[in-house]
């Protein structure tokens, strides 16, 4: 009976993932990361994602600082931050964020401050969305592990 809880939670996780895939928020790279998770590294995905959140928030703060500068002109620095964000976002399968950053970079290359501001706002909004959804995902995963552990202590 206790195992049912774990199964239901797994179904919830899969449903949430399918939803995020359907929305274009995540892509198959996220699944690749899941495949790298096993008993020897049971929290691999959440660890990587937490590093991503930590790195990204720094980059987002820098970007915001640059875009909102009165005499804004450091497009080169902006491009560097965006390249980093593009790289790490695609490494975790954050497809929508990657695409927004690419558009942001184009606006930056064209030295277009209005487009940059718009892109920044979209980026911040979607970043928050992704963060909330992934937190939800990992919370369900935690619950599932505990539920599975209660009945099947040595189960894989």
């Amino acid at each position, binding site marked *: 009976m206790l195992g049912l809880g774990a199964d239901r939670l797994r179904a919830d996780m899969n449903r949430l993932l399918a939803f995020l895939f359907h929305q274009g928020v995540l892509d198959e790279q996220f699944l690749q990361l899941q495949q790298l998770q096993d008993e020897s590294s049971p929290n691999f995905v959440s660890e990587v994602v937490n590093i991503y959140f930590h790195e990204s928030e720094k980059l987002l703060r820098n970007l915001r600082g640059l875009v909102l500068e009165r005499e804004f002109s450091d497009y080169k620095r902006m491009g560097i931050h965006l390249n980093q964000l593009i790289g*790490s976002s*695609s*490494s975790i399968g954050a497809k929508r964020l990657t695409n927004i950053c690419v558009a942001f970079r184009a606006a930056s290359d064209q030295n277009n401050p209005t487009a940059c501001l718009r892109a920044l706002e979209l980026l911040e909004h979607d970043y928050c969305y992704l963060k909330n959804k992934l937190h939800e995902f990992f919370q369900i995963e935690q619950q599932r592990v505990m539920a599975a552990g209660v009945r099947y202590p040595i189960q894989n």
Partner: protein
Amino acid sequence: MAITAGEEVMARDSPPSGPTELHVLAVDDSHVDRKVIERLLKISSCRVTAVESGSRALQYLGLDGERASVGFDGLKVNLIMTDYSMPGMTGYELLKKIKESSTMREIPVVIMSSENILTRIDRCLEEGAEDFLLKPVKLADVKRLKDSVLREQGEEHEGCKRKLQDEYMPASPCDPSSTPMLCPSPPSLQPPSKRPRLLNVD
């Protein structure tokens, strides 16, 4: 076991040739990417050392001018995987420095990049890069790379043993009951210097 029986006999009976486990030096300024590549390599049964910059990589390899003594940490590096876009020293610049080093130029260097730019790829391959991987790097990429590097190192080791057999052929016939160590191999067998792949000389 006759000396002249052929290299196949020697190969079959001699100790394992080349490294069976790769030690990979991974270079990337992104913490996320370091974590991922580390995991990819560990899952592929490789030993990993991950550093965050080209200068750290050179330090680790003992190439930074601060003459490190033999065996900086005792672990020989069999493969270097480096990101292309890094602040300070790019992966391309790191590649050049490694290929310029007489001690390190034989180590295969793989460049990783999230950007599929043909001129970039060409430039790296011309400079002697073993391969160019598009990020995000997949498990299949790592497996293919590992197989290819192990095979090359095995071949080089065989080539070296053959060379040594020619040079150190014992005068008297070998005792068939003794352990077949037909040619004495030096303790640290250095593979013959590897020319850049594109030149195709050998």
